């Protein structure tokens, strides 16, 4: 089942491009958002699939997970929310990691569904958002 290495590069790039379009549409085509899209890509490291820093072997979910080692509320956040506790900060970072991992797992499931699809091999099918986020 875990056979991501068989996915054609062209399909991966197509999915990458469409995910970025979805994200920019969800946010806005601002300078920050567009710049962000230029610095990540979908890809796999070994058998693990996810959203990674472009041209580097680092998943963004790993970076978000590493942020959890900052257990004390950072000063920059404290300036916005002076009454926030360290526990509430830790809740925020834990949830961020989980949601990001969930999103990646959903993308992977979508990918694998495409692999199983008989029509998939010779076509670059449009991305169906409902498929990506269902049945996780």
């Amino acid at each position: 089942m875990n056979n991501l290495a068989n996915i054609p590069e062209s399909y991966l790039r197509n999915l990458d491009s469409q995910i970025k379009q979805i994200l920019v549409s969800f946010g806005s085509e601002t300078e920050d958002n567009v710049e962000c899209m230029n610095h990540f890509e979908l890809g796999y490291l070994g058998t693990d699939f996810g959203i990674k820093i472009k041209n580097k072997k680092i998943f963004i979910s790993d970076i978000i997970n590493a942020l959890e080692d900052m257990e004390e509320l950072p000063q920059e956040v404290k300036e916005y929310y002076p009454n926030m506790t360290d526990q509430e900060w830790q809740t925020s970072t834990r949830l961020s990691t989980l949601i990001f991992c969930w999103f990646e797992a959903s993308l992977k499931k979508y990918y694998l569904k495409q692999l199983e699809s008989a029509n998939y091999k010779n076509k670059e099918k449009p991305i169906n958002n409902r498929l990506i986020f269902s049945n996780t």
Partner: protein
Amino acid sequence: MSASYETYERYGCEEEAKDCDQKQKLSPKPDHETQPKWIAEIGLVDPRRLGKPKRYRYRIAIVAKKGTREWLKQFEAKPENEPGRYAIPANELPKFNNEYVISISIAKRGTD
């Protein structure tokens, strides 16, 4: 040809990992002696989903004798939904260590 051993993994903190490496066995967590010890088939557990990274910073790899899986099956947590994850009861841990474990090695996540 099938391997003459089986491999499993667990994620833990630095203290636990070094203890496992030194003693070549899984030990109960101090003050949690009655809790089961979880191990899993290789690649099934994403440590990022478990909790704060420093608590799961190390991958503890366990090489066990052939036949271990058969014994572990009785402790499989959710065979239908999450196969391959085993909760070894505290009172069965000595048997696991003495009769099934061949060796234990550790690696820091991000460096293995």
